[in-house]
């Protein structure tokens, strides 16, 4: 970590977004993670994406569980309320928060230990409910804060820092999420800012649970030879299955693409995601195609990245429940309380 905070100087010519805010206004407190940590790059991508989307800081909530990844909500958008919950339980707190106020934009930051081990159940059920949030997994294959144990996403055969191999299967959050019925599944790499920013934007705009698995190397415990979550390994083996461009509602699709390689997914708020595919046989709107594609590239030893599956029509939690459009915490007591007369009438049937 660095001990020197960036000075707050308003440089002339800095760009402001629609709300008149600087990118700096989307930063948080100083990171206490190790220098070079992939998580800090993800934080930077979040800052950029949220600034570019002109999201009002007070409309955002940031939630997390426990672990290195879960510290990061403190490092972006200081003007948003944050909730650093208990280990593996971020999705349930997000569910309650979103149940109480559906207008909030919800970003949950989790890690591979947080979501694939202790919180595996909650991870699955946030997806099952299609909770309207961006669900980020900062995936480094290792427990950093407790100094280097394998996590559930460590690949079989990959080695720990001192050389011991992992002999167990790895849980693949992307394939798992697609199999469980997720409505938006993407993977990226902390070292690919350009792709990451677009996927964050698309995930926020997606009306449901947007799972974004980000390979985010741990420089201290999992960046050695033999690791499959290192910078070097990921750079060498990542395979961009799709390139996503997020086009806001008011925007216009200008780029020209060859037919068959590009699909455009229109979201309910009027924005679109334009997907350029590496393989014309791959259809990210079909679950079987997405799972088949992932397995095929696993056999090739590749790590597919990009938007891997999307079903923008699957209803999100409140649509399923039929909850009022107005946030529940905005109803007045008079709108919620049936009153004395109703109670009296009700009790006539209790005799």
């Amino acid at each position, binding site marked *: 970590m660095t001990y020197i905070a960036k000075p707050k100087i308003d440089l002339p010519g800095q760009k402001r977004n629609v709300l008149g805010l600087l990118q700096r206004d989307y930063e948080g407190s100083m990171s206490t993670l190790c220098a070079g940590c992939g998580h800090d790059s993800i934080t930077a991508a979040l800052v950029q994406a949220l600034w570019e989307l002109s999201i*009002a*800081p*007070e*409309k955002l*909530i940031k*939630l997390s569980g426990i672990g290195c990844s879960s510290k990061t*909500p*403190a490092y972006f958008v*200081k*003007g*948003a*309320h*944050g*909730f*650093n*919950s*208990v280990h593996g*339980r971020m*999705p*349930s*707190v*997000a*569910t*309650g*928060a*979103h*149940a*109480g*106020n559906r*207008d*909030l934009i919800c970003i949950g930051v989790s890690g591979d230990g947080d979501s694939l081990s202790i919180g595996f*159940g*909650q991870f*699955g*059920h946030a997806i099952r*409910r299609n909770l309207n949030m961006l669900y980020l997994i900062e995936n480094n294959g290792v427990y950093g804060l407790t100094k280097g144990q394998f996590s559930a996403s460590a690949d079989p055969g990959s080695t720990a820092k001192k050389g011991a191999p992992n002999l167990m299967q790895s849980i693949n959050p992307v394939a798992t999420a697609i199999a469980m019925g997720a409505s938006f599944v993407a993977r990226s790499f902390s070292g690919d800012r350009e792709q990451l920013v677009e996927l964050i934007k698309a995930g926020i705009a997606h009306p449901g649970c947007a799972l974004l698995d980000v390979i985010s190397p741990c420089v201290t415990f999992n960046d050695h030879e033999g690791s499959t979550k290192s910078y070097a390994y990921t750079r060498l083996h990542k395979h961009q299955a799709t390139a996503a461009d997020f086009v806001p509602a008011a925007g216009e699709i200008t780029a020209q693409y060859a037919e068959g390689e590009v699909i455009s997914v229109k979201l309910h708020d009027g924005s679109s995601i334009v997907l350029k595919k590496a393989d014309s046989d791959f259809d990210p709107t079909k679950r079987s195609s997405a799972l088949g594609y992932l397995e095929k590239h696993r056999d090739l030893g590749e790590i597919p990245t990009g938007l891997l599956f999307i079903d923008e029509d699957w209803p999100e939690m*409140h649509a399923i*429940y*039929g*909850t*009022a*459009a107005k*946030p*529940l*915490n905005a*109803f007045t*007591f008079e*709108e*919620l*309380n*049936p*009153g*004395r007369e*109703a*109670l*009296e009438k*009700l*009790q006539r049937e*209790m*005799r």
Partner: protein
Amino acid sequence: MPATQSRINDFVLKIATVNGTGSASANGLLMQALFRMGIPVTGKNMFPSNIQGLPTWYEIRASRNGYMARSGRVDIMVAMNAQTYQQDMNNVSPGGFLVYDSTWPRERSMTRNDITILGVPLSKLCNENFSVARMRILMKNVAYVGVLAALLDIDLDIVHALLEETFVAKPKLVEGNLQAIRMGYDYAKANFACPLPVHAEKMGDNAGQILIDGNAATGLGCVYAGATVGAWYPITPSTSVMDAFTHYCEMFRTDPDTGEKRYCIVQAEDELAAAGMVLGANWVGARAFTPTSGPGISLMSEFIGFAYYAEIPSVFIDVQRVGPSTGMPTRTQQCDLMLCAYASHGDTRHPMLFPANPGECFELTVKAFDLADRLQTPIFLMSDLDIGMNDWMVPQLEWDDSYRPDRGKVLGPADLDKMERFVRYTDTDGDGITYRTLPGEDSRGAYFVRGSGHNRQGGYTEDSKEYEDVMQRLLIKWETARKMVPPAVMTRAKKKTRLGILAYGSSDGAVVEARDQLAQQGIHTNYLRIRGFPFGTEVLDFLHDHDTVFVVEQNRDGQMKSLLKLETNNPADKLVSILHFNGMPITSDCVVNGVSQHLAAEAAA
């Protein structure tokens, strides 16, 4: 013929059946009929953790004096279950009556000389009168209602009216039910001297009273308190709290035009998640709660500690059942006091409220939400299976339309305008409670909720002094809670005494009746009923003012006694436990015996 006392409007009727045969509606019909005759009545359902096939009992007590507890006696037993026949016969009090299905011969060994045995060929009658197999089973239950109506002199017009109300949508069913009742009634009239010396007599109409179970009242309390988010995981015996909340929300909170719901009920993946959802919703300013039972509290404990330390309002409804572990899920106890009082690791303490009946479930549920918002901490409503799942006769629930919820110390944008800087955990007025803001309103009010060490500004800390500062303030808040939880209720003896009885929750009815019986024996006791934790000064005074205090509770280890020892400075030897923990609701006999045996032993010593 054994001697039978004449007992009018003062008897216990117990019905033994097989689970899943539809006896619940027949038993409810009997209870409601007695209620409409103006007789104070209670019903206790003793059911198995099973859907079909295991034995189940329903005990109805009619008490002209208005005693609501179980008494310990059985005046009339209806033995419909061959599996428990012997046991059921043994349970009849001397001079009592046993009604059984005499279609098949009873084993010769199954007899008693000190009770009257009345055989009614119920199966035979049903087989002769009904052709559909399922009807034959169901109507057997309705037929014993007819038999009892004749034996106990229950008003048939009331039974008729009740059936019509029940089957208002299916009038055809009224006919079949009436036929079965008439069948049983006529048989009893023709074959026995009706009514029995033990019978019912119209007393009035129980005006101003209702029949309700505690879980329904709790669910209704959540609606009236303005709760909008309910998160839960199904668990006996708390499930019907959420059933009731759902039902009343559908009734009162659904937009008649659009069908939009002004509530959100999430069936969570487990109790851990349910607790997390309650915290999340309360954090954003929606009133949220979870109903559960002991095993659920165990699972929720991590989040409970989080809510205590991060100071998030939350309401936990614990409908207690028999522990430890899975225990006996369909039996009652007051066994989660220690668990809830100090739930979670580290130094934690939580306010608890103890309703004694469904009426108080309604009232204290509303109170729980106000306390949670005011104190910004988890609040436990300590109900139990006896209160929650049994039908109780209570005065009509009252509501004051001028009530407005106490949302506690919440700052909005207008308040922030007047402040130089908002900080989350600084006590500005000495009550240990700090101001909070709600997400979604104003970036100047943004703060970071964390379960890790934090200072009075809300920042992360590992500094010893900053950590201690927050922990010490939480103790000040605890003292504020002491003045806010509902005070204990004192009932004085008619004569001056140094003997006290202390009880709480569903033990109340047994204590009330036991005190009257003890007074008749010349043993006078003052009674303090605890309604809240932490204990107020009235509890300290009560302990101080008595030489012996009997602590009546439904658990093995005397958990309330332990709390009193831990939380007060009174000499432990003046506390005498009277414990009942077999899973059935406590009887008045248990309290009478506990007190008199202790006093006798003391006199002998």
